[in-house]
C-alpha cells in the first residue's frame, strides 16, 4: 500500500559543494540518498514528492562538512498482510515463484497455488501450468500477500494465488 509520509534525512555535504548551487546539490543528494531505499519501519521510499524543509546547514567541527537535516514528503510503499498486489514474475522454481511488486519481492509457494497448478520443469522457461493458466517468467500475476518478513532494511512477502480472482493477469 502506498502512503505519503513526511520523513527526515540528514545530509552531510562536503565543503567543496558550498556555493550557489548548494541547494541543488542538497536536493540531488537527498534524492540519491533516499529514493529506492527501504526501511522496515516505513517501507520502500518510492519517490520524494516535496522537500518541505531543507534545514539549516551546520558545519561539523573537524571535518568542515555541513550537516543538513532535511524534511521531505515521500511516497512510501509498505506491504500489508491481506493486501492484493499485482506483480511480475521474475523467477520460477519447483518451490514456487518469485514476483516483483515494484521494489518488493513476493514469493508464492507452490502450496499457495491452486491444486491443479503443476510445476512443469521441462518447459522453457519453467512454468506453473494449469488448465487455463501459465505462470512463467514475466507473467503478470495478481497475488494476495499472506505474510511479510520485515527486516531492518528489507521487506519480503509471501503471497498466495489460491483464491478467486488471483493468478495470472491476462493482457486482453
Amino acid at each position, binding site marked *: 500500500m502506498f502512503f505519503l509520509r513526511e520523513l527526515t534525512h540528514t545530509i*552531510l555535504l562536503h565543503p567543496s559543494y558550498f556555493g550557489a548551487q548548494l541547494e541543488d546539490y542538497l536536493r540531488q543528494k537527498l534524492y540519491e540518498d533516499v529514493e529506492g531505499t527501504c*526501511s*522496515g519501519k516505513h517501507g520502500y521510499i518510492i519517490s520524494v514528492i516535496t522537500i518541505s524543509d531543507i534545514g539549516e546547514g551546520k558545519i*561539523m567541527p*573537524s*571535518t568542515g*562538512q555541513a550537516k543538513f537535516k532535511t524534511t521531505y514528503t515521500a511516497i512510501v510503499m509498505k506491504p500489508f*498482510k491481506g493486501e492484493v498486489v499485482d506483480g511480475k514474475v521474475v523467477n520460477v*522454481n519447483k*518451490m*514456487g515463484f518469485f514476483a516483483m511488486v515494484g521494489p518488493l519481492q513476493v*514469493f508464492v*509457494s507452490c*502450496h*499457495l497455488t491452486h491444486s491443479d497448478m503443476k510445476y512443469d520443469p521441462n518447459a522453457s522457461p519453467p512454468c506453473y501450468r494449469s488448465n487455463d493458466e501459465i505462470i512463467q517468467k514475466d507473467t503478470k500475476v495478481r497475488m494476495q*500477500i*499472506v*505474510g*511479510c*518478513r*520485515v*527486516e*531492518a*532494511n528489507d521487506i*519480503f512477502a*509471501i503471497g*498466495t494465488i489460491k483464491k478467486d480472482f488471483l493468478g495470472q493477469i491476462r493482457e486482453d
Partner: protein
Amino acid sequence: MSDVEDASSPIEAKSEDEREERPTTTKKRPRIVDPDEEDDGDEGADTKDDEEKAEGDEKDDEENDEDEEDEDEDDDEDDEEENDGERRRKRRRKQKRYRFLDVEAEVDDEDEEEDEDNDYGDVAEFIDEAPEEGAVQNDYQHRRLDRSFGRDEQEDVQDIVQRLKERHARTAAARYNGDSDAVPQRLLMPGVNDPSLWRVYTKTGREAAICASIFRKVFSQQYSANPIEVISVFYRDSLGGMIFLEARQSAAVSAAIAGIVGIFASRGVSLVPIEEMAPLLKIKKKDVNLTPGMWIKMKRGKHTGDLAQVVDTDQITSGVVGIKFIPRIDLTPREKRKERATNGKAGGLNTTVKPPSRLFSYDDVRKIYGRQSVRQGAQGSYFFENDEYIDGFCVKDVKIIVIESENVNPTLEEISRFSGDDQTTAKFDLSAIADANKNLTVSVLFPGDQVEVYEGEQTGLYGSVETVTQDIIAIKAFGGDVHNQIIEVPSRSVRKRFDVGEHVKVLAGKNQDATGMVVEVKGDVITLMSDQGEQEIKVFSKDIRKAADTSNTTKTGGLYDLHDLVMLDSTTAAVVTKVEGALLRVLDQNGAARSVTPDQVTLRRDNKRFAVATDSQGNDMKVGDNMKETEGENRHGEVINIFRSLFVFLHNRDLTDNNGVFVARAQALISVTPKSAVSDLGKMNPALNQQLPYGGASLMPPPPTNVNRNRLINTLVVVIKGTSKGLMGTIRDIQGDNARVELKTNNKILTIALTSLKRKDQKTGQTFPLEAGGGPSGFGRGGPAAGGYDVNPYSGAPMAGGQTPGGFGGRTPAARFGQTPNPYASGAMGGGKTPNPYASAAGAGGRTPAPGWGAGGKTPAPGWGGAGGKTPGWAGSGGKTPAPGFDGGRTPAWGGGAGMGGKTPNPYGSAAGPSGGRTPAPSNSTYGSGMEAGGSRYNNGPITAPTPYGGPVHSAPTPAAPSNPYSAPTPYGAPTPFAEGPSYAAPTPGATLSAPTPGISGGPTPYGAPTPFGAPTPYGGAGGVSNGGMNGNGTIGGLPWDWALDFRNIIVEVGPSSKPNTRSPLHFQRGQFDGQRFGYDSIVGESCHCVSLDDGSIIEDIPAEYLKPFKPDQPGQVVVVINGTQDQKGQQRTTQYENDGSWMMEMDQGDLGALVIDAGDLCRIWKV
C-alpha cells in the same frame, strides 16, 4: 446384655427383642447391626426395674409381636425368596460377630430353616402357627420366672456395668483390628527377624527353570529327615542371571542350590540387604497404553529400531498387539538365499547386513523368491514367509515385550517414509503423529502461543495460551461465543497454530534455528519457506515458534558468533554480521556483504586483545574504541575487529546495513574521543615500543598454535599428563583445545587436552611439544629458534638484519633491540655488543665471499633507510604502515617456524616472491637480486654508520657462494678466527629464522628490500646449518669433521681433511681416492672401513676427517639426515624434490609439514 442375661433369659425373649425393634425401624436386614448394638447398650444400661417393668408390657404384646414377626418373615420370604439363602448367610455371618446373640441367632436360623423346610408355603405356616403360639407363651412364662430368680443371684448392677464397659472396650479394640484391611506399610517391611533374601547367580535365561527345580527339590525333601528350609524362590525378569531365595540360613540356600545345573555356585550366595528387599520385590507398574495409530519402535530382530504403528489392540490382554511396519525383505539373489538355506538357517538369521526397509512389492518378491513363495490373500494382501503384507506394510501380531512404546519420538522423515511419500502425507493420520509427540506438548507451550484444540469437546477452538500447568493449559479463546473467555483444556489436545505467512523459527530438529515463513499448514505439519536457503522445510508445529519480524542477530553459540572475524580466503577477512541458521552473513574487508556457509570460511584467531591499528592521526586504535570515518559517510562505530592493522571493522547499531557492521581503512578513521596528538615521539621509537606491553613489535601476538590443528591429525603422540599419562596414541580429531586420541594400547579414543600431549617420533621415540615449530621440519627448530612462536618476530628480524648497525653503530635502534629480553639478543648477540653477528655466520660458513656479506650487511640498511628514511623511521614503517614491517617480520618467524611458510597469510610475502618464502630456495635464488637492490640502496641509504664492508670482520668471512649459499659446500678448512667462537654460533638460528623471508625475493619492491629480513645473508653464509657452536671442532659446511663416525652404512666421498688444526695431510693418501665414493659399515677408531662403490675391491680404512657425505642427487633416494637439529639428525628419509640445494622429503607419519633439508645435511644410504 450380659452373659448372664444371655444364659438365663429365654431364647425367645432375645429374638423377641430383636423382632420388636425391627418393624419399628425398617425391614431391611442390614439395620440389624445397629439396632442390636443399641439394644445391647440399652439393655446393658437398663436396670432390672426396667426389665421388670417392660416385662408386663411385653407379655401383653408378645402375641402380637410374634404375629407380626412371623408375618414379617413371610413378607420377607415372599419378597426375597430367591435371595433367601444368601440373606440368611449374611445374617448369620453378622450375627456371629455378636457373641451375645449367638443363641438368638441360632434360634432365628432355626426358625427360618423351619420356614424353609416347610414346603407348604404360607398356608401351612398359618396352620402351624396356632398350636405353636400357646406353647411358646407357656414356655416364656416359665423362663421369665427362671430368669427373675436367677437375677436375684446376680451381682449388683454396678458390677455389671463395670464388666460391660470392660468388655465393650475390649471388643471395640478387637473389632478395629479385625475390620481394618489397611496395615501400615512400614509394619510389613522386612526386618531383622524376618527370613533373609539370598541372591544366587545363575545362567541367564534359565532362571525360571532353575526356580522350578528348586521348588521340586524343596518339596521332595519337605518331609524327609532334613528338609531344605527355603521359604521361597523367585526371580525377576528385570534382573537376569540371578535368582533369589528366601531362607533364614545361607546353609539352607546352599542346600537348595546344590546340584542344580545352571547355578553359578562359585559366585557365591550373597545376602540381599534388608533395605533392598522391598524394592527388589516391588513391581514397577508399567503402563503400556497402546492405542491404534500409536507409534512404537521395535526392539528385537532385524527390525530393531524401526518405526511401527499399532493397528489393533484387540488382543492386548494376552500381551499381543497388531502392528504394521515397513518390512525388510532380503531381495538379494536367490543363490544366496539357497546358500543360506543349505546352512540350515531361516532367511536372514545369519546375514550380517540388515536388508533395507522398503515397502513390500509383490513383483519384486516374486521375482526373487518365486511365485509359490507368495500367496495372495483377500483384499490385496499377500502372505510371504508367514507374514502378511497389506499395502506394502508388514502387518503382524507381536508381543508387547518386543516393542517400545515410550519415547518413540518419530521424526517427520520417518513418518513420511512410513506413509510412502509426501503426497500421501495428507491422507495420513496426523493425529497419530501428534499422539506420538504428545508427551512433549506441555514443555513446548509458552504463554502467548497461539494454539488450537484439535480433539475433545472443544475441538476447533483456538486462542492464545494464558497459563501452562502440567496437563492443563488455560487459553484465551478467540472468536465465537467464547470470545475472550479463559478456557481450560488438556494440553494434550492442543497444538500450536500457525497461519500461512507467519514468520517462524524452528526450535528443534535438524533444521534447528532456521527461520522461515509458513507457506502451508496441514494439521501438525508446517511447511516453511526458509529465509536463507530458498528451500522448503517441513516441521512439526510443536517444533516451531513465532519469530520476531526481524530475524534476530543475537549470538547463537555455534562455531561462528556474531562479529567474529573469519577468513574467506587467505587474504580476505570478513566479519560475521548475522548468523542465520546454517548460513553466515558476512561483510568482507572490501565492504562487500555475502552469505557463506560455515565451511567456506575459517575462523581467524582471536586477536582482539592485541590488534592495533593506526588511525589517520597516527594514534593507536584498539578493539572497542569508538572511531569515526574521516571521509565518505562519516559513520562512526565501535571497533569490533582489526585485520592486519589495515582494515577495521566497526559496528554501530544505528546503521541498518549489514546489521550495523561496516569496514573502513584504518587510515580513514579518527578517534571520536580526542587523544593526545602524535606529539609523543616516544611512541614512534620502535625501541621504546618494544618495551611496551603491547606496543611495537607485539602489535600482533605470535601466531597461536592452533592455526590449523587439523594437521595434527594422525600424529603419533604420547600423553604426558592425567590418567592416561605415558600412553601412546594417534590423534584422530581435534576439537578446540582437545584432541581425540586413539590409544595404541586398547584402541580406545579419549579426549585429551592438547597441552597434555606430546608428539612422539615413531622412529627415534623422542618426544617433542605438539606445536613447537614443526619438529622435524628444517627451519625454525634449529637451536634457540625452536621456540619460534614465542620469539618476537620483530626482534628476531632486527637481530638478523639490524645487528649490523648494532654492531657498528651501537646506538642505533638495532642495538636497543639487542637489549630487549629476547633470546636471540641475549643468547646470540651478547647484548648487541658483540663485534658482529656476521662473524658468527662467517665462522660457521667459513670463507664467505665478500659480496655475500655485502648483501647481508646491506640489507638491513635499506630496511632502515628505505622504509623510514631515517633510522628511527622504522617506527614509520612499523607503526604507521605497520604492514610491511610487521608482516615481513612475521613471515619468517611463522613460516619458518612452522615449516609451512606457504600458509602464512601475509599477502606481502606471497606478493613478493613466487614461493612466498616457503622454501628457502627461492630466497636463495633471488638472493642475488636482493643483494643488488640492497646494495644500491645501501649506497644511497641515509645511514651514516660505518658500512659493514668497512668492518674488518667482513673481509674475512666468505660464507657462501652468492649463487647458492645454501648448498655452500665450499667452506671447508681455513677456519676464520670467528669460526672458533661458539658464542657466535647462536645467532645463526636467528638468522635461520629470518632467512626465508620473502622480503628478500621482493628485493626490488619497496617492501621487500626494506624489511629487516634482508638479513638472510647470514643464513646463507652459515650454510643453513646451525651447528656452528656445536662442537667448535671445525666443520664441513657446518658438519663436524668426525660426522661420519656417527653413522654407518652410508655413502661417503673422499675429500680433503676437514679436521681443523690437524696434523694429518690435507688429502688422504695424497688424494688418491679423492672424489671417489665409498660405503662403510664399520668403524675402526676414527677411521671408517670403506668399500669403494666404484671398484668393490678397494677396501680402505679412511679417517673420518676425509669423508664427506654423498649427497642425494635424485628424488626417491633414501638418505639419512646427518646434521641438523637433534630430532632431525639420524632420521631416515626419502628424497622427493630438490630445489636449489635443498631437498624436500617425502612425508612421513608424524610429520607436521613438509620437511626440507639442505642437501649438505643429507647423506645417501649405502645399504638400504
